[in-house]
């Protein structure tokens, strides 16, 4: 009888921010898109730049580079559209990245208590140890979705 492996292989998307690479579980990625026009309006939430329109959805753009690299991105090549959880709700969030992304399979070592909250774990790829990001901790927003007026279907006018 074969003993089960300690960690099962999972799919991850590798993304590049400046000179560094990070990983996100492929289960939490919707798509990779070319940069499009950002619509900005006043708000008070740090890290959120504005929103883009994608397939009829309004998707917030969140620059995670400041938190991960200590400085903002000077150039951006794509938006990686991630899936962010708010309690039992999910929403897309667009993450600007500076280079191509790559889909790989790897075994993840879970994060330890000493790791930052946004680190879900670690993977090893081509001799490099890469942080796996926890988008729910990295991007702004309450963990439990607040009730808003627009939660009510009666207030939403549809085409």
């Amino acid at each position, binding site marked *: 009888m074969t003993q089960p492996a300690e960690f099962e292989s999972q799919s991850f998307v590798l993304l590049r921010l400046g000179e560094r690479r990070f990983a996100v579980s492929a289960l939490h990625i919707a798509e990779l898109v070319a940069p499009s026009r950002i619509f900005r309006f006043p708000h008070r939430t740090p890290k959120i730049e504005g929103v883009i329109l994608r397939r009829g959805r309004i998707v917030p753009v969140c620059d995670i580079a400041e938190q991960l690299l200590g400085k903002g991105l000077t150039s951006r090549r794509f938006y990686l559209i991630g899936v962010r959880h708010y309690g039992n709700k999910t929403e897309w969030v667009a993450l600007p990245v500076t280079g191509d992304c790559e889909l790989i399979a790897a075994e993840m070592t879970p994060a330890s208590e000493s790791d930052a909250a946004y680190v879900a774990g670690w993977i090893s790829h081509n001799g490099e140890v890469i942080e796996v990001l926890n988008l729910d901790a990295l991007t702004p927003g309450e963990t439990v979705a607040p009730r808003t007026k627009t939660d009510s279907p009666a207030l*939403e006018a549809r085409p």
Partner: protein
Amino acid sequence: MRLMEPANRPPTRAEQIILFRVGGQLFALSSSSVQEVRGVDSLAGSASEISQPSLRKVKHVVRRGDRSFYVVNGAVHFGLPVSPAALVFVLRRTRTALLVDGIEKMATMTRLQALPLSYCHEERQWYRGLTAIDQSVIPVVNPEGFLTAEELAMLDSSLPPNISPTEQPSETTDTTQ
């Protein structure tokens, strides 16, 4: 193979909105939320100065009939560059009159999308949601989001003695420029 039946969608419910500018930024507001539109100059005779140093966005209170409204500078409220306001919107079912740069146009909103949950600060009170008009995304302001209950109480406490804060909002509509 069975094709999926189209989902039963509720009937279209369009909403008339006013697109207006504050500090160069475009916003939308339901026209049904606006009781009256006035030129700023036409309010000069009915406005009284009010001093509440901790609330820079309100400098005046204005009498409309038997009611008083706090005049909120939209640019200060949203943290935008302050420019000379041309118009004031008296907002229905509130005690707010909003200073704006000008009206861009009227439009019809057919879909109001909830503000993404990533936005998690005061803006959740500022906006009812977002709408896409002419391939642009525009925030739809919440008329009740300009002054909190605490701010209203603070303003009431600094009213001149000849103005009562307890008058109830009426429902008459008068749109004049």
